[in-house]
């Protein structure tokens, strides 16, 4: 098992290097002269050269790459023209908000998706199964932002059950930033009122963001459960007297969870990208909204940083899924 984790870690370092090359090339290899851009339209050649020297654009590409990577390891992700603050500082504020949203969404998708998949498979063609199949097919197909808008229209504007957007009421004092995730910070500082308020604000965006993931988790889990329940070792377990509940919830589900884990990991990775849409619909001050503003303002360095984070996020989730795979399946563990 340790052997496997070590091997995957080395692999991940390699991938990280590749990712850095890609984000680096966004700004440094892309056509156009960043020095001229930075110096402004009326700059003289002298001024442009000065800027070039200042930013190190005159150095060889390889050297520039090492400077870039070195900067990242020192926590220097550049400076945002739009917010005028260092990108790293901005991200410290925005990333926890996004992380919180994504964590609640994936949790919701798993907690609801896996049992629904199981019930759907066990009671195949029953009414639960039919409803689940219709909803999950539409969930895979519906655009997330549209669902977000519909939820807002109905549950916020018409029924008034949930707030339209944001993370907390404007009048509420946010909890002391420890992790940056409001619900966690509120609990840590024992402000339960704020905790429930933050949770209340979380509901609609989390549902909208989780829906495509939920739909695909249900579909994959259902299909895998149906397949697994027809396998020989399930028949054997029944013949030996294992109860039906245990056969489904333990014997079959653990096997069905392997492919389901793969889709959970993939969806977890995609979710961070999906936040760009959901955060703009729900006015959620996270990385997605930040990236959107940066893109529209042609603010390069935040875009690079967010790209880096999205990529690293994807790698991390895949790494985690690999480890969970190893925990679930002894055959994977052995092979490393």
């Amino acid at each position, binding site marked *: 098992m340790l052997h496997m984790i070590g091997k995957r870690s080395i692999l991940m370092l390699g991938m990280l290097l590749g990712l850095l090359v890609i984000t680096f090339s966004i700004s440094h290899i892309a056509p156009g002269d960043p020095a001229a851009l930075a110096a402004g339209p009326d700059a003289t050649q002298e001024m442009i050269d000065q800027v070039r020297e200042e930013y190190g654009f005159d150095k060889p590409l390889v050297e520039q790459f090492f400077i870039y990577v070195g900067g990242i390891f020192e926590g220097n992700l550049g400076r945002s023209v739009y917010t005028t603050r260092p990108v790293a500082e901005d991200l410290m504020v925005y990333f926890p908000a996004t992380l919180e949203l994504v964590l609640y969404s994936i949790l919701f998708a798993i907690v609801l998706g896996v049992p629904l998949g199981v019930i759907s498979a066990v009671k195949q063609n029953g009414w639960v199964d039919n409803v689940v199949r219709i909803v999950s097919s539409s969930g895979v197909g519906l655009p997330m932002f549209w669902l977000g808008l519909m939820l807002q229209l109905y549950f916020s504007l018409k029924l008034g059950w949930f707030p339209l957007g944001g993370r907390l009421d404007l009048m509420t004092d946010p909890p002391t930033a420890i992790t940056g995730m409001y619900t966690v910070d509120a609990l840590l500082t024992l402000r339960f009122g704020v905790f429930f308020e933050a949770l209340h604000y979380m509901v609609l965006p989390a549902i909208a963001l989780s829906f495509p993931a939920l739909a695909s988790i249900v579909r994959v889990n259902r299909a895998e459960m149906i397949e697994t329940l027809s*396998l*020989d*070792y399930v*028949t*054997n*377990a*029944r*013949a*030996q*007297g*294992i*109860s*039906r509940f*245990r056969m489904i919830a333990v*014997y079959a589900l*653990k*096997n069905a969870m*392997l492919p389901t884990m793969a889709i959970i990991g993939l969806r977890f990775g995609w979710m961070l990208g999906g936040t760009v849409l959901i955060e703009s619909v729900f006015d959620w001050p996270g990385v997605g909204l930040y990236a959107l503003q940066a893109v529209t303002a042609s603010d390069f360095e935040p875009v690079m940083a967010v790209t880096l984070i999205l990529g690293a996020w994807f790698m991390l989730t895949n790494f985690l899924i690999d480890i969970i795979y190893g925990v*679930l*399946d*002894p*055959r994977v563990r*052995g092979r490393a």
Partner: protein
Amino acid sequence: MTELPVLEIRDYRLNFNTFDGVYHALDGVNLAVGKGQSLGIVGETGCGKSVTVRNVLGLLPSPPAEVISGEILYNGLDMLKVTPAEMQKIRGIEIAMIFQDPMTYLNPVFTIGTQMIDVILAHQKALDKHARKNKKQARAHAIEMLRKVHLPNPESQIDRYPHELSGGMRQRVLIAMALSGSPKLLIADEPTTALDVTIQAQILDLIAELVEDMGLSVIIITHDLGVVAKVCDNVAVMYAGQVVEYGTIDEVFGQPKHPYTEGLLKSIPHPGKPPEELYGIPGFLPNLLTPPVGCRFQARCAKAMDICGTPPVNRNNVGHDRTVLCHLYEEGFADA
């Protein structure tokens, strides 16, 4: 048979409702196993051997399977009508089953110990709802069972995963699991088919030894006539969902009465026989979506007569506890 049989199957008819129509899988199967006796069921692949015994423990999913008529009496209790709770008290405790392919009948993501302990605890729970779980004792029992099936180093093997064991070892594990509840009747569904020839003999010897030891009644399903000759007292020859001949090993193999049994025995290859003399029964199994009217073997039978196309074909007694399903042995065909 003087005393009451342990298991008796009477006039058992079963269909599968498929997309292509009704598949008449079993048509009036009659079988019996006495206490301490062993019965072999032989026939080609697809003749209904496995289907006949699967429902003894309620293992056929319905739909598509549909019982049309008949009884499966275990000590007088109709296994087709028992409640799920009653069935739990019989599975593995009264009647146990081992299957064809040890590669697929063990759950790949649990150790063999976990699976065996689970089965042992399930038996305890079925017998006494309030029984307290004693994992230590169950584990000791599992190790003892593994020793009984001659698995080397059971104390360490018990913590291994199925994929770490060979096919023969896995079949031993499955046998140990099946016998852990001290059943009275063992049903072995092609227990040696998936194994190497050398291992086959070992497993058969093991089954014979355990049967002797534990005073079990046994049903062995196989298409290997050698296996039956080696282990069984009685044999039932099945063809296309019917028992065509039944009797003791010596009678049936010594003087086969049904044309199909004759053909089957003639088609066994053995080293002294030149390959060109190898016999094969011409034709194929009939399509049971549209079974032939009258005798199901008529199209392939060398002795077919006009009357063979007219139902009913009766079970004719041709000696003590010996029946043949063929017009040749009808009263009035005394010369046959």
